[in-house]
């Protein structure tokens, strides 16, 4: 059992070349905030990348940023804020949700898991913002892909593949991401008291209008508390942009959505951060937490169906397309019922929080159809033929 802490890319090559030669699996860690997410890794050694940190290049006019992969997100966000820029996919922070503290995660970690917050709906996920990277594969070979410009189709888009690979294909050394200007103004409109179906109908009407909604979420009454002073359910819609535009669109939307229910304004605050961070579930440590991505129009029926079969709390992001579920009591954490329910409409359910033993037994990620599972295994072998990078983290035998 060793703890490796490479200080640069060539260290990283040496370590993984050794691990490959000796067939010694390693658990790959950026800053370790998501160790409790995914299947438990079956490896004796730890590869701690935290020293591969620091801002290497930031050119605000080019909207581009290159950092050591394990650079703390907090450090990056502070620098971006100074230049009125942001990571537009609104990276969520699940430190508290996973029972730890907020503020610790690295950019490489969030990219590797491809998580995006409420703005994912409009601006894409982490995968849409990674422009290039360098890293070391499971053969102990350093390689790079992508570049530092947005328009790039030179070679396969390995950036997409690395996002969502959870450290199973390569250990990232350096990443280059696209950054965007922070909107000059933002405003959030609330519709009060809608049931789930009505809320999704309202969000759909807003999203299908040309008013450029940048986030749309629905919190049923049981998930309340995020909006001070409101006891019932809350449907929230965010618009962003230059001030005159936000003011004008607010007016139009108020009229458009007034037919759906009582409208209220929400001053700029924590709401969207809280929704992205799944704050309503951070305080329910005994519940198993799922994040379910489905076609938006199927979200409400899905939650209704599950509510009849399981003891759940739930809320929606992404206009109904992202269903957060907290399940109590069920032996399999609701896995069977949830996965059965999403079969018809398509989608995937990921177990975000659950006890370690449980995560070893219940598939954390959506099981793949046989043909796709075989292809996935071949892709993995193309990067890591000996299976030394995070073995077992995604699927039992990969």
């Amino acid at each position, binding site marked *: 059992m060793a703890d490796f802490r490479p200080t640069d890319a060539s260290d990283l090559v040496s*370590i993984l070349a050794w691990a490959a030669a000796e067939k010694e699996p390693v658990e790959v860690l950026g800053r370790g905030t998501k160790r409790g997410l995914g299947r438990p890794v079956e490896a004796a050694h730890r590869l701690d990348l935290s020293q591969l940190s620091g801002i290497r290049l930031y050119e605000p006019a080019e909207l581009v940023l290159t950092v050591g992969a394990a650079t703390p997100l907090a450090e990056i966000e502070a620098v971006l804020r100074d230049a009125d820029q942001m990571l537009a996919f609104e990276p969520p922070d699940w430190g508290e949700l996973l029972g730890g503290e907020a503020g610790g995660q690295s950019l490489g970690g969030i990219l590797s898991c491809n998580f995006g917050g409420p703005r994912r709906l409009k601006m894409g996920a982490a995968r849409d913002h990674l422009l290039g990277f360098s890293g070391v594969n499971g053969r102990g070979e350093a390689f790079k892909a992508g570049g530092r410009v947005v*328009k790039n189709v030179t070679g396969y888009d390995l950036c997409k593949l690395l996002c969502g690979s959870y450290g199973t294909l390569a250990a990232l050394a350096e990443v280059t991401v696209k950054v965007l200007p922070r909107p000059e103004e933002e405003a959030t409109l609330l519709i009060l008291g809608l049931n789930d179906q009505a809320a999704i109908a309202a969000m759909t009407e807003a999203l299908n209008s040309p008013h450029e909604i940048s986030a749309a979420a629905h919190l049923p009454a049981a998930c309340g508390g995020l909006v001070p002073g409101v006891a019932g359910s809350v449907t929230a819609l965010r618009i962003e942009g230059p001030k005159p535009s936000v003011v004008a669109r607010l007016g139009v939307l108020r009229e458009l959505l007034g037919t759906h229910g009582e409208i209220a304004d929400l001053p700029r605050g924590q709401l969207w951060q809280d929704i992205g961070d799944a704050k309503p579930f951070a305080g329910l440590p005994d519940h198993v937490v799922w994040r379910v991505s489905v076609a938006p129009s199927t979200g409400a029926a899905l939650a209704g169906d599950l509510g009849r079969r399981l003891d759940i709390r739930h809320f929606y992001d992404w206009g109904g397309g992202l269903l957060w579920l907290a399940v109590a009591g069920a032996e399999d954490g609701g896995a069977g019922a949830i996965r059965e329910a999403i079969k018809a409409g398509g989608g995937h359910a990921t177990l975000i929080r659950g006890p370690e033993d449980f995560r070893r037994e219940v598939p954390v990620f959506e099981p793949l159809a046989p043909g796709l599972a075989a292809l996935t295994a071949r892709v993995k072998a193309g990067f890591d033929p000996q299976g030394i990078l995070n073995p077992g983290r995604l699927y039992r035998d990969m």
Partner: protein
Amino acid sequence: MHMPPPDEALIARRDEIVAGLRAIVPGEGVISTEAERRAYESDGLTAYRQPPLAVVLPSTVEEVSRVLRYCRAQGVKVVPRGAGTSLSGGALPLADGIILGLGKFNRILEIDFANRCVVAQPGVTNLGITLAVQHAGFFYAPDPSSQIACTIGGNVAENSGGVHCLKYGVTTNNLLGLEVVLMDGEVVRLGGKHLDAGTLDLMGVMTGSEGLLGIVTEVTVRILPRPSTARALLIGFPSSETAGDTVADIIGSGIIPGGMEMMDRPAIHAAEDFVHAGYPLDVEALLIVELDGPEAEVDHLVERVETIANRHGAVSCRISQNEEERLVFWAGRKAAFPAVGRISPDYYCMDGTIPRGRLTEVLTRMAALSEIHGLRVANVFHAGDGNLHPLILYDANQPGELDRAEAMGSDILRLCVEVGGVLTGEHGVGVEKRDLMGTMFNQMDLDQQMRLKCAFDPEGLLNPGKVFPELRRCAELGKMHVHRGELAFPDIPRF
């Protein structure tokens, strides 16, 4: 341009292979006469031509799957083809391979406004998708200039862009799902109507894979509500430098226009002579900046862009007052390629991307390259994202001119890479830039990409000779070279 040497023994078996294919795809779905095969001998990169062994036009997924299984069993190579508008030779046939044409997959399968998506077969044209949803106020955002002709399957294979992708993203950012048939006939579904893959994003890596990984047989794209307004500014500058500074300043001040296109003097003149859009002829650079969105926003931003342009010494600035005028501003830009085609017997379109800030330097050095190679160049580019389209003017009937044009093109692309950019922004590597891949990637980078290819197509039968400068066997690529004694392991800090 060298293609892998064709397998003569296989070519000798053409009749037998055609018969085998006819047993799967009946009637006119298999094309074998020489005259008809010639119709497929090249794509949008017309300098290269090669009639295929045969052309197969399946009309069901089952047929695609069986054709691939048959080809794999027989060792027949397969080149997928949509509309054949690729500018990098992606759909260039092989003498010992079939063309698998997706033209019969031309139906829109589902329009789902509640989930803001369209499910289409791969042979539907890019514009066909927008046309199918515009009655309800929606559009499909990526809009390559070839959108009347090019197919959505080809767009996926090339990860195509368009003038509006600065704001709305390229193909990969607007896809939700794919159905793909692998070379072994297996049909896999990636994504759907929901967002994100959950684990490995195989849809992401299929996008832009240039027909080397699988055949796309169904595509689900995101559609967006059409912005309520769009207005364009047509701004003339005394130098490309001032135009470039304006671009940087617009973006730097937090404005992301719907589109931002630049043309240089030769391109302006060619376009104006052709379509009479009213472009100023006494300027060195012309910028078209389009702002779209809610009316209040567009009016506000038009004003801000105008202020920025004036600050940088714009010599003329017109703002579209109505839809007709906006379209006139665009007419010249949209016709730039054919317009250049009128002033030169042939032109060769390049596609590098550079960091925006290096624009002036690259243009200056490109002018020097123009002198060295003795060929004129006209520039149009997606200024907002640094994607250049230099058009090299030449005459294929003059001995040596094509070679010179290609040499100059390579020099331009090397320059793009040297300043921190890339070989291709949206047209793909294909055969055209294949041999330049080494300027951007080292052998290990390329080996890793080829190992991905092996996971999808271990025999290398799908579109070989494209993208990678060297064909390597998967067995060779998969070998582990272990040098136990030489590992630097003892020096590693351990804690």
